[in-house]
C-alpha cells in the first residue's frame, strides 16, 4: 500500500509519542518490580504503541477517546500528562483520578473517557458518546480502542448494531494481538478477523498492520472524516502483538520463539528506520529525542514518588456529587 504522505511534524510526533509510551511502560514495570508502585500489575502496551498513537493523532482536541486497558499510548497522545498518569498508577493524590482509579485513568479535559476494568462495557459507553454527539450535533467523533478479547464480549454486538443503525460517529479500533489473557484467539473465536464483524452492518471494516503507525493513522483519518461527515461508524482492525505477559508477573502462554519473532516487527524501530532513511530526522536527532523523553519519564516518576498520598477523608468523597 502506498502511504499517503504525512506531514513531517506529525511523523516526528508519532516517533516521540511511541517512544514515550514504550519508555513509560518500561519504567512503570520497573517501579512495580521495585515495589515503588503498589497495586494492580501493569498491563504493558509494549509492541502495540503504533495503534494508540496513530489512531489518536487523527483526532482533534474536542473529539472523544476511550482508551483500552493496555499501555498509555492512547492517553498520552490525546494529551494526558505523564506526571498525573504516573502518580495515578502509584495511587497518589495528585493522580489524574486522585489515586482512586490506578490504571483506570481518564482525563475529561482532553475528552479522554475512563479506562474501565471490565472487558466489555466501554463499547457501549462509546456508543453512547457517539449517540450524544449525534443528538448534540457537535461534529465531534469518538474513537474507541479495545482488544480482540473485548471484541468477544456480548456488548460488542449491540455496540456495532446501534452505531450502524443510527450512523453514529464512532471509530471502532480493535487492537488484535490474538491473545485474551491466557486464551488464544483461535481457540474461542468463530471468525477469521474482527473486521469481518463490521460487514453485516455495511460499515467500512478494514484490516491494517497495527505495527505500522502511518497505516493506522491513515486508516483512522479516513474513518474520522467519514464519521465527522455523518456517514457513520467504521471498524479498523489492527493486527499487532503483545510483547509482555497479560500483566507483569502473569504466566506466558506463547513460546519464546514466537515472542522473538514478534519483536522483530517492532513498530518503533520500523518508524525510526523510515524517518532516518527518508531523512525526516537524523540518527542523532532520534537519539536526542529518546534522551529527552527519558528525562521526562524520570521527572514524572519523581513527581509521582514525591507526591502525597490521598488524605483519609478522601475515601468518602466523590461517591455522589
Amino acid at each position: 500500500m502506498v502511504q499517503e504522505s504525512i506531514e513531517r511534524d506529525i511523523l516526528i510526533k508519532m516517533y516521540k509519542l511511541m517512544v514515550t509510551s514504550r519508555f513509560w511502560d518500561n519504567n512503570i514495570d520497573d517501579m512495580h518490580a521495585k515495589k515503588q508502585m503498589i497495586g494492580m500489575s501493569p498491563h504493558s502496551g509494549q509492541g502495540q504503541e503504533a495503534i494508540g498513537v496513530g489512531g489518536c493523532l487523527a483526532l482533534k482536541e474536542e473529539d472523544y477517546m476511550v482508551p483500552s486497558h493496555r499501555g498509555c499510548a492512547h492517553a498520552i497522545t490525546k494529551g494526558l500528562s505523564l506526571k498525573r498518569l504516573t502518580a495515578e498508577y502509584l495511587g497518589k493524590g495528585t493522580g489524574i483520578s486522585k489515586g482512586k482509579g490506578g490504571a483506570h485513568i481518564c482525563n475529561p479535559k482532553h475528552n479522554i473517557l475512563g479506562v474501565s476494568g471490565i472487558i466489555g462495557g466501554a463499547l457501549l459507553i462509546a456508543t453512547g458518546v457517539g449517540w450524544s454527539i449525534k443528538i448534540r450535533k457537535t461534529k465531534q467523533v469518538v474513537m474507541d480502542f479495545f482488544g480482540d478479547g473485548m471484541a468477544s464480549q456480548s456488548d460488542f454486538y449491540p455496540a456495532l448494531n446501534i452505531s450502524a443503525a443510527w450512523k453514529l460517529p464512532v471509530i471502532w479500533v480493535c487492537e488484535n494481538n490474538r491473545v485474551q489473557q491466557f486464551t488464544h484467539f483461535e481457540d474461542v473465536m468463530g471468525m477469521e478477523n474482527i473486521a469481518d464483524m463490521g460487514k453485516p452492518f455495511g460499515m467500512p471494516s478494514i484490516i491494517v498492520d497495527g505495527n505500522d503507525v502511518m497505516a493506522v493513522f491513515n486508516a483512522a483519518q479516513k474513518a474520522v472524516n467519514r464519521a465527522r461527515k455523518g456517514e457513520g461508524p467504521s471498524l479498523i482492525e489492527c493486527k499487532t502483538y503483545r510483547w509482555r505477559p497479560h500483566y507483569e508477573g502473569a504466566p506466558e502462554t506463547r513460546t519464546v520463539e514466537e515472542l522473538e519473532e514478534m519483536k522483530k516487527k517492532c513498530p518503533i524501530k520500523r518508524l525510526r528506520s523510515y524517518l532516518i532513511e527518508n531523512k525526516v530526522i537524523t540518527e542523532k536527532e532520534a537519539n536526542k529525542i529518546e534522551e529527552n523523553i527519558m528525562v521526562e519519564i524520570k521527572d514524572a516518576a519523581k513527581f509521582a514518588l514525591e507526591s502525597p498520598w490521598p488524605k483519609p477523608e478522601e475515601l468518602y468523597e466523590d461517591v455522589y456529587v
Partner: protein
Amino acid sequence: MSEKTINVSDAIHDALVEEMRRDPSVVIVGESIQRATSFGITRGLLTEFGYNRVWDTPIAENAIAGLALGAALTGLRPVPIIMIGDFIPYAMEIICNEIAKYRYMFGGNFKVPITIRVGAQGAGAGLAAQHSQCLEAWFIHVPGLKVVYASTPYDAKGLLKASIRDDNPVLFFEHKFLGSITGTIPTEDYTVPIGVADVKREGEDVTIVAWAFMMHKALNAATELEKEGISVEVIDPRTLYPLDKETILQSVKKTGRLIIAEEAPKTGGIGAEISAMVNEEGFDSLDAPIMRVAAPHTPIPYSAALEKLWIPNVKDIINAAKKIVT
C-alpha cells in the same frame, strides 16, 4: 397553590414531559417507546419532542444503560427505560460496574446525571417468574446509586423530577399496580427531595414501613387494625437509598414496634436492611421483635391460584401487627 387529581401513571408521564420541556438535555431511550407503549407513560413524547429526544433501541438492556452513560458523560441528562423490572439483570454490568463507579473511580472527574426508569415491577398480573419480580434490594447494596420508589402520584411526580435534576445516577422504580392509583398534586412545578421519608398515616402502637404497592396495603391494614383498636403509623421511605433513618427511628421510638412490608422474597430484601438499621441505631426503642412481611422464597408462580398465595397481602400485615401488639 391549585391542585388536580391524577393517577401515578399520568403523574410520571407529566413529570417526564415537563422535565423534557424545561431542560433540552433530557433525552429518553428504551424499548418500544416511540410508536406505542405497553404502559402508556411515554405516549405523546415523540410527537412533542421528536426523534432526537425519544429513542427506540434494539432489545439490549445493557446497551440502553450504556447509551445513557456515554451520553451523561458528555453533556446530556438521559432517562433510560428498562421496560419491565425483571429485565434489569441484563443491565447489571453497566449499572453496577460502570454507572455506579464512574464518578468515584475517576476521582470525581465526571458527573453521571442519569435517571434509570425501571418499569412495571410486581406480581399479580399472571406474568410468571420472569415478569413479576421486585428487584430493588440489589441496588441499595451498590455504592454510587440512589434508589427511589414512589407510591403516590404526588411522590412519583415530585421524585421523578428530583431524580432527573439530580447529578447522580438514580434508579426510579415503578410498580405495575400503582399506575392507576390516584391522588392530588399541585398544578405548579414542584419536586420531592430524594432521601426524605413521608409519614403516610400517624399512629401510636406500631410502625409499618412500606413502599410502592405495599404501602397501600399497609394503609388498608391500618384502617382494619384501627377497628380493632390498634393504632398504626405508616411510613413510606420513598427513597430506599439514601434511607431517611431519622423518620423511621423517631416513629419506632414512639410506637416501640416495627413491621416492614415488602413484595419481594423476605431473604435479603430491603426489609432486612431496615430491620438491621433500627436494631443497630434504635435498639432501646424496641418493645417487640421487628417483623418482616414479605414473599416466600420461591420464584413467582404463573397460576392465578398460586400467585395470589405468593403475594404478601393486607391480611399478612394485619396478622403480623396483631402478633407483636399484645
